[in-house]
Every structure is written in structure tokens, then in C-alpha cells.
């Protein structure tokens, strides 16, 4: 699976302006802190009788950013939703294979989807702060929804917003409606909301596709920072973005009428400079897709 074992990036030190983990707000009922490795083993997915993903195996290392790239309709988003049990929300959806978080299968009998989703957060393509809540309440929404308690909600709001790179812009208007922010700010608010429950993994489904270049740059900086603390998996259509933010890459492809699968995976710099499969080279150099 991991064919090349070079340590990508190499700067695993936490970002300087963040408080050290020991002074973080304490969460009760939250997942154990720290990043976890996420492994998919022969994961398959169906919608009805339609096989959309065929035997995908991928290891997403802890404290690394893994990018899933590929043309539209090749199963990247389905794979991502398989990783935190959002796939099963579609009534006709079925699956096969295993997804292991820290070595334990999240689809094992007796494992509740809610517990899995607490540990594996998700940010969606379209920013969707809860419209009936203020900025502060949006950040704390996950705690309320997942029944996690904290002694210092104000500290948690500040820390989460700071990790998402939004604190300085909103610290004077935490009571405003989340919908009053710009698109890019809303997306960072959603990242802060996902980080507040203390997940081990953060999944991002094309988080910048609805945003302007400046907001995209801010989100990418945010990803670079949180990538040191949690495992990040990001789906993107933007080749430059995959190159900028990710440590490792997986290239998905689905031939006409065939289910999607991984063509090639490996360290990002190798994937973009000397891929072994000609289709990967064609895709990353912009010749199709």
C-alpha cells in the first residue's frame, strides 16, 4: 500500500500561535485526543444494485494530509462518506470491506455510527453553518448534538476558532448569526465546529470549490496547520491545491460504466512529478478530467 516511505513535509512541530494541548479546554465524553491512522481495506460501495466503488484500499497516515483526486463521478466523495459512516444515510446504500480507525473496524458489529462520527469529523462542499444559531453557538453545536460537556465553553470557542483561522475576524461578534459571515468565513466556521468536538480525523469534501481565491488560500493555511494535529483527508478537483496542501495523494478513476477504483497512490511530490501510470500523468498534468 505505502510503496514509498519518505517522511513528507518533515515539519511535524505544532503551529506556534496555538496553545499547547495541555491548556486546551477539557472535554467530557469526547473521543480520546490525538490523530489516528485511518485504513480502508477492500472498501466497496453500492447505491441500489449499482456498484460505484470497487475494492479500494488506502492508508491515511496520522498527522498527514491525504488528498483524493480524480475526475467527477469516480467515487471520491462516496469513498470519503464511507470513512465516517455517512454513506449509510442514503436509503439504498450498501457496502463491503473494512474501514479501520486506529486498527479497529468502524463497521464492526455493535459500533454506533454516532461514536464513529464524533471521532471522524467532516466538512462539506457547501458551507452550512446552522442558521438558527450564533457564531458561538455554531462552534459549540457539536458538543450539544453529540452530548459532550466542557468546563470552559468560552475557551473552547476561542481555541476552535483560532485553529480554523477565524478567531481574529469574529472575536467581537460571536453573537451574530453564522449566516451573516462571508462564504469563506462560513466554511472556516464549519471547520471550527468540526474541530470543537475533538475529532481524530477530519474529512473535507471539496471544501474550497464554492469559494474565491483569497478564502481558498485561508482555508489551505488552516488545513496546513490542523494537518499537524489530526489526520486530514481532502477531496479536491484542484490539482494545484492537492499539490499545495497534501502529503500523500490517491488518484481515483472510473471508466465508462465501471465502478471507481484507485489507479495510483503515493507521496504527492512523486505523484505529480513521476507517476508510474500514464493515466495519472495525463490527469495531473491537465490533459483530461
Amino acid at each position, binding site marked *: 500500500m505505502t510503496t514509498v516511505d519518505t517522511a513528507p513535509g518533515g515539519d511535524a512541530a505544532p503551529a506556534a500561535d496555538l496553545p499547547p494541548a495541555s491548556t486546551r479546554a477539557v472535554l467530557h465524553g469526547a473521543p480520546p485526543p490525538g490523530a489516528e491512522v485511518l485504513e480502508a481495506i477492500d472498501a466497496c460501495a453500492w447505491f441500489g444494485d449499482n456498484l460505484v466503488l470497487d475494492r479500494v484500499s488506502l492508508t491515511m497516515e496520522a498527522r498527514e494530509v491525504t488528498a483524493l483526486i480524480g475526475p467527477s463521478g469516480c467515487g471520491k466523495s462516496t469513498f470519503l462518506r464511507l470513512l465516517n459512516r455517512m454513506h449509510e*444515510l442514503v436509503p439504498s446504500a450498501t457496502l463491503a470491506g473494512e474501514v479501520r480507525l486506529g486498527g479497529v473496524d468502524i463497521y464492526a458489529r455493535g459500533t454506533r455510527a454516532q461514536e464513529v462520527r464524533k471521532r471522524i469529523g467532516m466538512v462539506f462542499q457547501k458551507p452550512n453553518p446552522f442558521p438558527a444559531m450564533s457564531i458561538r453557538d455554531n462552534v459549540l453545536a457539536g458538543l450539544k448534538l453529540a452530548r459532550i460537556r466542557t468546563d470552559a465553553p468560552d475557551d473552547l470557542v476561542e481555541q476552535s476558532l483560532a485553529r480554523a483561522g477565524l478567531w481574529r475576524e469574529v472575536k467581537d461578534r460571536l453573537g451574530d448569526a453564522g449566516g451573516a459571515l462571508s462564504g469563506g468565513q462560513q466554511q472556516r466556521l464549519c471547520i471550527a465546529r468540526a474541530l470543537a468536538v475533538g475529532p481524530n480525523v477530519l474529512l473535507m469534501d471539496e471544501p474550497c470549490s464554492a469559494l474565491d481565491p483569497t478564502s481558498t488560500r485561508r482555508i489551505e493555511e488552516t488545513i496546513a496547520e490542523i494537518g499537524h494535529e489530526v489526520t486530514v483527508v481532502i477531496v479536491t478537483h484542484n490539482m494545484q491545491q492537492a499539490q499545495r496542501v497534501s502529503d500523500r495523494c490517491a488518484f481515483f478513476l472510473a471508466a465508462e460504466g465501471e465502478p471507481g477504483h484507485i489507479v495510483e497512490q503515493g507521496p504527492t511530490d512523486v505523484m505529480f512529478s513521476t507517476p508510474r501510470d500514464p493515466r495519472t500523468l495525463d490527469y495531473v498534468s491537465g490533459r483530461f478530467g
Partner: protein
Amino acid sequence: MTAVEDAPVDLRSTTVAGDRPERARPSRRRVAVKTPTERLVTLGCALNSFLLVWLVAARLTSGMGWLAFGLVWYATFLAFTYLTAREQDGPVAASDRLAATIIGSATAALVVPFAWLIGYIVVRGAPALRFGFFLHDQAGVRPDDPATAGGGAHAIVGSLEQVSLALLVSLPLGLLTAVFLNETRSRWRRPVRILIDAMSGLPSIIAGLFIYAILIIAFGHEGELFGYDGFMASLALSITMLPTITRTVEVVLRLIPGGLRESALALGSSRARMVWSVVLPTARTGVTTSVVLGIARAVGETAPLLFTSFGLNYMNANPFSFPQESLPLFVFRNVQKPSQASIDRGFTGAFVLLLVVLSLFALARLVGRDRTGSRRRSARRRSAATSKETP
């Protein structure tokens, strides 16, 4: 191009802001607004067609009824409008103008009778309205006493109590049913939806009859819970309110983007928690609308009350025993009476009913208002306080 000719433009190079001299900003205009001329033309068409139809109907032929006159006048007016617009601006603009005229007149046709209705009630009901109407009941008032004698306090109290009780029963039921229809995947959703639709078409007197048959006849004794009283009326009213509330809330729930539900679930929420903390707060204004519509449906209903709360001439503030008056019954019973004073009293009751409905609507809007804005202030205060504590 324009009159500004400073230098020959090289089409292969770009132009930057400094290349051209600054010019004064052109004057502001507002386009796409009806001009006075257009209004005059419409007015002219109306007048012209009226005169033409009048000439034909009253002078050249033996005349026609006012309804036929109105219809012929309207058709002629539309034809004139279309033809003048076609003459001035061409066929596309003409059909546009025709459509705008039809829509405008249809709105007027709806608003005018409505305003007339309200105005009629106000004119008939207001003169006999004294402040005492809100304080006294009809005890000891004889049919030939003047319309200002006594009051309708007993009816107001009864209406408010019955509608509140009905709301207390039907709002939770309606909300739960709407959540069931929209947030679950049960196989029973379809039959339930059909049932709710059928219920909304139920004649309200059937609702009253139902309560009468299964509760009052079966278990009723005078002065007890299942005798004639306000609570029986409110049960009948809640049957008529339930489909209104359910359908309104369901439509609003369906409009809430699925992305909100997904992000709530992705945070580790259970479905019940998601509905309670995300879906229903987002639907808050819609729930308010459903309450308003439910009240509107129930507060004016007379038929379900006829053999449930029965009506009474004096104050009974206890909705759980003995008959009770309410505003629609007050109107119904007074307008039927032979004396002019009673009929006037009935119109006063109708006027007060309008006022009560209006204030209930205002109250519902006030309660269901979007609170995020008001929370902003308290949060500001909170953050100001914390920043003072930790400078």
C-alpha cells in the same frame, strides 16, 4: 466608439486605468419604472372603453345588466390596452403589458371585496362598541335593550380559552406528525399523509359531531368534564387545526436544506437530537406561521361549537365544566335574533373577533421572531465582560 479620441488604441496591448483621462460620472437614471405616460395611457384606455361600452349599451341598444356591463367593459379595456401598447412598442411589449394589466386587475378584484368586507364589519360593529364590551357579559340584558347594553367579555374569555386549549393539543401533535412525515423513513408515512389531507377537507361540523357522539353522548353528564363545556369545543377545534398545522410545518421542514441535517449527523448527533436542536429551530418562523394559520382556522369556527360548548349568556371562565360562550357563537346567536339591537350587538362581536384575531397574529409573530439578533446584544455584553476581566 465614443467621442473621446486621445490616442490611437493598440488592440494588442491592454489598457490600464491611468491611460484615459478622468471623465465626469454620468448622471444617474432609474430604468424599468412605469413612466407617467404609461399610467396616463392605462387610465385613458379605461375611460375610453367605459365610454364606448356605455354608448353601445345604454344609447344604441336596450341596455344590459351591471354584471354584463362590467365584463364587457373589462374585455374592451384589455383589448384597448393591448392595441395601444402594440401600436407604441410592438407585439412583445404589448403582450407583456396585457399580462401585467390582467395580474394587476386580478389582485384588485381580490383586495377590493376583502377591504369591503372588513370595512362593512367595522362600520356596522364599531358604533356600538364601548369599553364596557370587554368588561361585562349579557346577564340580565333583554333583547330590546340598546346594543351598547352589557358586553361580550364572557365570549372573549371563552374564545381565548378554547383556542389556547386547542392549540395546546394540536401544536405538539402537529409538530410530531410533521417530523414523522419528514424526518423518518417509516412505511406508514404515505397513509398518514393521505389521512392528514383527508382531514383537512373535513367539514368542521363533522368534527363537532364527532366529539358530540363519542364523548358527550357516551360519557357526558351536566357540569362534568364530558358534558357541554369549553374543553369539548377545544377538542373539536383541535381536529380542525391539526391538518393545517401539520401540513404547514411539513412544507417548512421539507425546505430545510439536507446539508444541515448531514452536518449535524456528521458531528455525531443522533437523529432525534438533530431534529430537536437543528431542524426545528431552523423551522422556527415556519412553526409560527403554522400556529397563526391554525389559530385563524379555529378562532372563527362556529359549527364545531354548536353542540360542544353550546353557548351561554353570562361569564363562565372555567372551560372544563358547564357551557361556555365564544365570539363566533356570540355573533351567530345575536345576529339571528329579531331585534335590531341584538343584530347590532352581533356585528360588534364580529368586529371584536377581528380585533382578537389581529392581536393573536401579532402575538404569534412576536413570540416566533428570529432571536439571533437579540442574542447578539447579550453575547456582546458577555464578551465585553470577559475582556474586562482578562485585560
